[in-house]
C-alpha cells in the first residue's frame, strides 16, 4: 500500500512542476511551489522505500485505503502553496485545496485579483487532477500500476453499476484520460475564441471539464458578460455531466449508444424541466425572454453538473427556483462523469426500489427481475442505492446540525451541507452565489472539507477508514 501511495505521489510531484515552471516564466515567487515539490517528492521517496513492491495483489481493503489516503495526502500537499505563499492560513489553505481536488469550487479567497497567476493556475489544476479522479489520473499516466489498480479504480469511481470500457484497467483509464484531455483542449479553444484571454480560457476550461467551479475572477462567469462564453460553458458542463464511458460507446457504436443511455435521457429531462421552471419565473419577474432562458439553462446546468459557476445571483430568485436548484444540486450528474451528487442512476435505482417495495407489500412472495436500461439489476444493487440515499440524508442532517451549532441559519446550513456533499460550491444565503466561505467559523470549515471529501468518494470508502476493524490485519 505504501509503495502504491509513493508511486501516486511521484506522479503528483511531477505535476507540481507545472505551476513551478509557470512561476519561473512569469517571474513570480517560486518558493511555495518548490516547497510543495520538496514535500511531495520527499514523501514519495519515503513511502516507496517503506512499502513492499507489490502492486498486483492489492486487496479491496488496501484499494480503499490507497484511494482515501491518496486524496487526503494530495489535498494536504496541495495546500502548501496557499499557506507558504502567505495567501491563506492553515485551515483555509487546506479547505481551498480540498475544494479544488474534490471539484467543489467553493473558495475562501476574498479578492482573486490580488492573487498571483501561478496560484490561480494551481487552483485550476487541482480541479483538473481531481476531476477525473486522482488515482485514475495517475493510473493512466504512469507505468508500473498493474491489475491491482482495478481495486483502486473501482473504489474511486464508485458507480453503483460498475462498467469497464476496456478489458484492462490501465487501457480504460488511458481512454478516459484521452477523452478528458480532448474536452479540455476543445473547451480552451472555444473559450478563447469566445473572447476570454488565453490564461482565463485555460483556467476556466480545466475548471469546467472537472465540473469544479473555480474562476479567476470574484464574479465567476458573470465577470465576462458574454452570452457566447456562457453558451460554451453550458455545452462543456453538459458534456462532462454524462458518463465518460458513453463516449467510448459512441466512438465504437455511433450515436445510438448515447440514445440508448437511459441515465443521460433522464438527466436531460430533469434539466429541461428545471430550466423551464427557472426561465418562467425569471421571465415573470421582468427579465427578457432570451436572457431568462440563457440564465435559467446556465444555472440549471452549472448546478446539476455540480460545477458551481455563477452567472446570476440565484439567491434572490423566487422560492420554487431555489427549491429546483436545491433538488438538482442533490441529484447531480450521471455516474462515470466528473460531476458529483447522488447521481441520476441512483435516483432511477431508488425509483425501481420503491416500485418493487410497493409491489412486494401487495404480493410478498412475488419474484420479479428488475431491469434498467436493458440490463438486469440485482437486489443488492437496488438496496445499495437505498443505503446510499439513507447515508446521504443522515450526513446532510449531521453537517447541518454542526453548521447551525456554529451559528449559520437553518436553511443556509441545509443548503451548505447539500452543496458540499455534492461538490457544487455555492449554496444559499450567507454562503450563496455572490459570497464565499471565508467567513465560516473554523469548525464549519473543517466540516465542509470533510463533507467535500466524503461526498467526492461516494460516502462509504471514506467512512470505511474510520471503522475500528479497518486497520487490523
Amino acid at each position, binding site marked *: 500500500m505504501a509503495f502504491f501511495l509513493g508511486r501516486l505521489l511521484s506522479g503528483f510531484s511531477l505535476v507540481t512542476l507545472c505551476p513551478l515552471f509557470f512561476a519561473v516564466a512569469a517571474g513570480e515567487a517560486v518558493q511555495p511551489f518548490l516547497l510543495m515539490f520538496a514535500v511531495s517528492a520527499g514523501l514519495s521517496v519515503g513511502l516507496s522505500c517503506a512499502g513492499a513492491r507489490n502492486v498486483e495483489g492489492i486487496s479491496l481493503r488496501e484499494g480503499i485505503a490507497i484511494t482515501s489516503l491518496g486524496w487526503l495526502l494530495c489535498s494536504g500537499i496541495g495546500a502548501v502553496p496557499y499557506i507558504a505563499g502567505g495567501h491563506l492560513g492553515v485551515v483555509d489553505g487546506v479547505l481551498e485545496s480540498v475544494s479544488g481536488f474534490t471539484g467543489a469550487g467553493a473558495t475562501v479567497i476574498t479578492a482573486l485579483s490580488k492573487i498571483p497567476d501561478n496560484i490561480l493556475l494551481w487552483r485550476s489544476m487541482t480541479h483538473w487532477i481531481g476531476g477525473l479522479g486522482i488515482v485514475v489520473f495517475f493510473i493512466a499516466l504512469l507505468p508500473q500500476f498493474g491489475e491491482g489498480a482495478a481495486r483502486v479504480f473501482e473504489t474511486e469511481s464508485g458507480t453503483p453499476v460498475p462498467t469497464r470500457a476496456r478489458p484492462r484497467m490501465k487501457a480504460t483509464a488511458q481512454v478516459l484520460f484521452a477523452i478528458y484531455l480532448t474536452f479540455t483542449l476543445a473547451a480552451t479553444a472555444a473559450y478563447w475564441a469566445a473572447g476570454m484571454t488565453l490564461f482565463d480560457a485555460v483556467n476556466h476550461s480545466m475548471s469546467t471539464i472537472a465540473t469544479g467551479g473555480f474562476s479567476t475572477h470574484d464574479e465567476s462567469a458573470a465577470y465576462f458578460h458574454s452570452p457566447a462564453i456562457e453558451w460554451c460553458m453550458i455545452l462543456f458542463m453538459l458534456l462532462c455531466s454524462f458518463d465518460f464511458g458513453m463516449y467510448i460507446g459512441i466512438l465504437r457504436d455511433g450515436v445510438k449508444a448515447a440514445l440508448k443511455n437511459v441515465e443521460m435521457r433522464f438527466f436531460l429531462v430533469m434539466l429541461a424541466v428545471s430550466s423551464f421552471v427557472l426561465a418562467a419565473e425569471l421571465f415573470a419577474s421582468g427579465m427578457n425572454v432570451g436572457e431568462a432562458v440563457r440564465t435559467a439553462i446556465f444555472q440549471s446546468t452549472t448546478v446539476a453538473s455540480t460545477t458551481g459557476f455563477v452567472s446570476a445571483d440565484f439567491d434572490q430568485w*423566487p*422560492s420554487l427556483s431555489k*427549491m429546483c436548484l436545491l433538488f438538482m444540486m442533490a441529484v447531480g450528474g450521471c455516474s462515470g462523469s466528473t460531476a458529483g451528487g447522488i447521481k441520476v442512476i441512483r435516483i432511477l435505482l431508488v425509483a425501481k426500489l420503491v416500485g418493487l417495495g*410497493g409491489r*412486494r407489500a401487495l404480493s410478498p412472495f412475488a419474484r420479479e427481475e428488475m431491469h434498467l436500461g436493458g440490463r438486469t439489476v440485482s437486489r443488492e444493487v437496488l*438496496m445499495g442505492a*437505498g443505503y446510499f440515499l439513507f447515508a446521504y440524508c*443522515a450526513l446532510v442532517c449531521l453537517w447541518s446540525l454542526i453548521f447551525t451549532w456554529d451559528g449559520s441559519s437553518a436553511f443556509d446550513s441545509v443548503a451548505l451541507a447539500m452543496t458540499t456533499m455534492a461538490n457544487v460550491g455555492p449554496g444559499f444565503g450567507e454562503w450563496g452565489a455572490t459570497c464565499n466561505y471565508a467567513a465560516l467559523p473554523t469548525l464549519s470549515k473543517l466540516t465542509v472539507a470533510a463533507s467535500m471529501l466524503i461526498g467526492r468518494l461516494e460516502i*462509504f470508502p471514506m467512512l470505511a477508514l474510520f471503522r475500528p476493524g479497518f486497520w487490523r490485519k
Partner: protein
Amino acid sequence: MAAAVFSVLGLSVFDAVNLAMVTLATGGCYTPMTSDGGTLFSLAMMAVMLFSAGNFFFYAEVTRRGLTVDNPGAGEMRAMLRLVVGAGLLISLHLWRSGTYDISDSLRNGFFAATAFLSTTGMNPVLLAGWPDFDRFVLILLIFIGGCIASSAGGLKILRLSVLANASVEELRRTLHSRMVLRVSALGRMVPLSMVGQLLSFFSLYTAVFFGAAMALSLAGIAPLSAMGLSAACLTSAGPAALLAGDVGVYTSMGEGWRLFCCALMLLGRLEVFSFLFVIQTLLSRWEGRW
C-alpha cells in the same frame, strides 16, 4: 388518568379533558401546551407525551407479564428514552450557552420541547420563536424520527430508523468484504433482508414525498425553509412544527387549494405513505377499468 392528573395540577375539567385527549393522541397545539405551567405540570405533560409515543404492544405485554427483559418492545422504548435524554440535554445546553434562558429554564424547556417533538405532539410555537436555529433544527429532526412503532406518534419511527442505520453500517462492512452475507439486527432482534428492502423503499418514498411536497408548497410563494417545515409537519402529523421554520403566518397566508394539499399530505403521512398510494392506485385502476 391523564385528565385527572391535569385537573389535580390546576386545569379546569374541560381543559384537562381536552388536553388529555390532545396529548395522548399526540395531536398538536392546544393553548395550555407550553412548559410555562410550572415544573410539576411540565413533568406530567412530558410523561403523558412519552407514554403516547411509546410502543403500545410493550404496555400490553407489561400488563400481561410484568416488566420483563425479553419484552419485544423494550429495546425501542430504551432507544426512545435515550433519544429524549440526549436531545433534551443537547437543546438545554445550547439554550443555556446561547443565553436564551438560565440553567433551570433551559433544562425545563429543552426537555419539554424534546419530548413534545419526538412524540410529534408539538407545542405552543410562540415560545419557540425566540430560540436559536440550532435548537429548532434539532426539533425538526426529532419530528422526522418520531416515536415508537405501534404508538400514536408520527414520523419515520425509531425502530425503522434503527434498522436502516444498522443495515447501513453492515453495508459499510460489505464495502470491505464484497462477498459478505449481510446480517442485520436492530434493538436486539434479527431483521430479514426482505424487511430491510421494504424499509429502504419506505424511506426513499418518504424522502421523495417530503421533498416533492416542499417543492410544490414553494409554488405557493412560501420560503424554502418554511415549505420544508410545512411539508415535514404535515407528513409527520406534527402540525405546529411548521412554525419552527420561523414563518409564524405560514398556515394563515396560504390559499384554500394549498390547505387542501396539506390535508392530503397529512393523510399521506398518517397512513404511512404506501397505504395511501395503494388506495390511489386501486381507485385509478378501477377508474381505468371502466374506460
